[in-house]
């Protein structure tokens, strides 16, 4: 592929903060016309910065320090903002992550599309607004075009931004996590749409995402980024099936996939930020294959066969890393009699006219040591049920029983023992810890309130609790804003454990975390179950996560239980139409080669 024919050629791109810390270092990419490159990485990897640089754009406080970018033969790098803008839209365009905040709320859809055509004068004759709407399968009517963004659904909004991006027929489109935030079924539809458009117009695409499963469905080639550099690159199936870089391997191993029943392995540690990158390989501190050389020298991207490259001295040993099959660890039957029973629970939101049914006659039980998962999309009522069980949301009818004793709807009215035995861990780790309290204060609090321990004694237990969640005891002195998301979530779990509970209600506790961090937390939960005999009520929207941790699953749609079954049965032979739709829409990694 010659440079002139390539849709995109990037050479040595380096982007830094104003203070000189590099966000993206020495990135080189190539995309053939009509091909799709997946750019993958977790938070802090620099993938979004790279994506924006392809349009000649930098966020405030950030600037391109080196590198050349060529799109369809024209130079995109080193241009001033005004010159870059003239090329955007016509040469390369952008599909954003959050369509709602990317559309001007004061403009009708028609105007949004027309502006794109008008601004790129040569394009004005290319299309009408109606044709643009038609191309993304939106109603090509005047009435629809007159709508405002807030009158469209999330999926429709995203189609509009795609229409805007394509209307000037650029040879290259950069998509930045375009389906994050959409529910699974809509996501599947949008992905299908993107694929169709790609075929029809021979579009070259750079698809940025943290979601390997999604990327595996759309991309021909994948480039994996870590700490600002590309660490592995090659054809998608090969890279995901037989990773050559230990990070890629760890990433693949941490992806929940309900079809591949193996235990999730997280990657210990935290990715370094722009200022903290170590000498040598940035992944070395967390790498299972690390040797002395890795900490002293920075490895270069070298050819590893099959048109692939990897940035690792030890890449030959990567295939030897093993991922175990999922342990069917549940030894023995559950103790007789359910620990927690929910009977005909119904709950609502709002008052009067605005009343919405969140849950309707939901019934299930949880035995000691068991893990029951509530699965559903947003609006399914799963979080409401969890909050009702924890005493934060008063149900409109039904009962919640802890060992055959009915619990009051409000936590405050429940006996102390009941509050102690049932603990809740929240979804947002950035919100569930008081920023003004040290870790020690947060973790010791439940013991003081619920076990009547004097403060000294409660604080003495903190070190042990932190170790139980695999955190160093010295973190006890820290404030939450000094910790990463994964660390905060572990602290939240430690706090829950301080009460010595029997039941742990986990409300989407990993949704806000990076995939590898998520895997590590799920691993921890699994271990805690065995060590402490905890029963788990696990809420999630991700079937893959549920497959990794649950014994039984309840599928919820709009507050109603669609199906309840042991996890194996549900995933392999579900009879319910809604469940099957969810299973089909969930993105999965390609089937691996026999080597795994």
């Amino acid at each position: 592929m010659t440079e002139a024919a390539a849709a995109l050629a990037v050479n040595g791109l380096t982007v830094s903060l104003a203070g000189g810390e590099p966000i993206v270092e020495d990135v080189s990419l190539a995309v053939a016309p009509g091909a799709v490159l997946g750019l993958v990485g977790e938070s802090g990897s620099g993938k979004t910065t790279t994506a924006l640089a392809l349009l000649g754009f930098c966020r405030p406080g950030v600037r391109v320090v080196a590198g050349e970018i060529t799109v369809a033969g024209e130079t995109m790098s080193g241009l001033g903002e005004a010159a870059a803008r003239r090329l955007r839209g016509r040469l390369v365009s952008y599909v954003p992550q959050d369509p709602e905040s990317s559309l001007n709320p004061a403009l009708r859809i028609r105007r949004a599309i027309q502006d794109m055509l008008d601004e790129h004068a040569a394009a004005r004759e290319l299309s009408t607004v109606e044709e643009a709407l038609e191309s993304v399968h939106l109603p090509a009517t005047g009435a629809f075009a007159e709508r405002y963004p807030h009158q469209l659904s999330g999926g429709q909004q995203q189609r509009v931004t795609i229409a805007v991006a394509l209307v000037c027929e650029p040879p290259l489109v950069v998509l930045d996590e375009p389906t994050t935030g959409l529910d699974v079924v809509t996501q599947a539809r949008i992905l299908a749409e993107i694929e169709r458009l790609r075929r029809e117009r021979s579009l070259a695409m750079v698809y940025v995402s943290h979601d390997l499963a999604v990327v595996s469905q759309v991309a021909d080639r994948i480039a994996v980024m870590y700490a600002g550099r590309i660490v592995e690159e090659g054809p998608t199936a090969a890279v995901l099936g037989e990773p050559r870089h230990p990070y890629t391997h760890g990433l693949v191993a941490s992806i929940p996939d309900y079809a591949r029943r193996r235990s999730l392995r997280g990657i210990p540690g935290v990715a370094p930020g722009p200022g903290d990158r170590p000498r040598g390989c940035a992944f070395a501190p967390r790498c299972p294959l690390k040797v002395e050389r890795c900490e002293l020298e920075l490895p270069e991207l070298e050819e590893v066969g099959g048109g692939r490259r990897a940035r690792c001295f030890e890449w030959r040993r990567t295939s030897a890393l093993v991922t175990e099959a999922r342990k069917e660890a549940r030894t023995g039957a559950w103790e007789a009699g359910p620990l927690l029973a929910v009977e005909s629970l119904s709950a609502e939101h709002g008052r009067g006219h605005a009343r919405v049914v969140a849950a309707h006659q939901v019934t299930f039980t949880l035995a000691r040591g068991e893990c029951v998962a509530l699965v559903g999309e947003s609006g399914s009522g799963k979080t409401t049920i969890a909050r009702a069980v924890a005493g934060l949301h008063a149900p409109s009818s039904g009962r919640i029983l802890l060992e055959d004793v009915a619990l009051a709807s409000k936590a405050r009215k429940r006996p102390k023992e009941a509050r102690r035995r049932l603990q809740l861990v929240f979804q947002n780790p950035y919100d569930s810890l008081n920023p003004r309290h040290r870790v020690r204060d947060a973790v010791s609090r439940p013991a003081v309130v619920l076990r009547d321990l004097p403060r000294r004694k409660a604080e003495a237990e903190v070190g042990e609790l932190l170790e139980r969640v695999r955190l160093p005891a010295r973190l006890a002195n820290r404030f939450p804003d000094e910790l990463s998301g994964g660390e905060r979530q572990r602290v939240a779990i430690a706090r829950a454990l301080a009460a010595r509970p029997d039941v742990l209600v986990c409300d989407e506790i990993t949704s806000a975390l990076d995939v590898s961090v998520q895997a590590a937390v799920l691993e921890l939960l699994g271990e805690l179950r065995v060590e402490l005999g905890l029963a788990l009520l696990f809420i999630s929207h991700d079937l893959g996560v549920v497959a990794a941790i649950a014994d039984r699953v309840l599928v919820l749609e709009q507050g109603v239980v669609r199906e309840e079954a042991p996890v194996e049965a549900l995933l392999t032979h579900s009879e319910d139409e809604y469940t099957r739709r969810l299973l089909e829409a969930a993105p999965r990694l390609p089937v691996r080669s026999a080597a795994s």
Partner: protein
Amino acid sequence: MGLDRSATERYFDWLGGLVRGDLGNSAAGYAQGGELPIWNDVKWKIRNSLVLAGITTLVMVPLALLLGVVSALRAGRPTDHAISVGSLAVISLPEFVIGSLLILVFFAWLDVLPPVSLIAPDVNPLSEPSKLVLPVLTLLGVTTAASIRMVRAGMVEVLGTGYVQMARLNGFRERLVVWRYAIRNALAPSVQVFTQNIQFLIGGIIVTEFLFSYPGLGKELVDAVNIRDVREVQSLAMFIAAVYIFLNLVADLIVVLLVPKLRTSA
């Protein structure tokens, strides 16, 4: 005057009169030996105050919009710093300080403008512009400075939104981005800004008219308070409050017109 009846009775009496448009007779009027209906007294003073408020608003709105938007577009740079610190300084000053300093400069030192703005009852204030300059400048000070800061804040917020960044990523010219994507969305909050400033304007008018002895509602009010003419104070205060509420309603209406989300249902 019915002072022999109880306070409550008098109050309802007055309310009834108000509804009928009859503001009653002022104590000062009685003191002068006759029944002087308040309305006659007050009619031309209302006009005078409205002239002052009107001129101030006409100058203030475009000035504040201009400086606020420019300040936001050049955020962090010298122009912005100058405008921001300047407006912060001005907004800190009580009107009478601004007015007094202006009088010191333009009268005591330069002797080009009169220190007092006495205007005869039947004379249209617009016919004596030199007497209006200092009062208007005084009023402009605080209201403009406050408006600039709020317009700037609103504009900065809009400039940081996802859709403004998207417009730039779509390759739109900066002029289009600023006008159709930024200012267009910053207008609605700005209207609310100006309503808040009506509060400042009303308070400012009271002080300014008193300082310059300008015969308007504000001075009338302070004089009435000084002689404890409860009825007149009540009526004037009611009137001013009513105007204020009316202006607020108008502003709310404008906001609804400007923000599509409020007009249409999702």
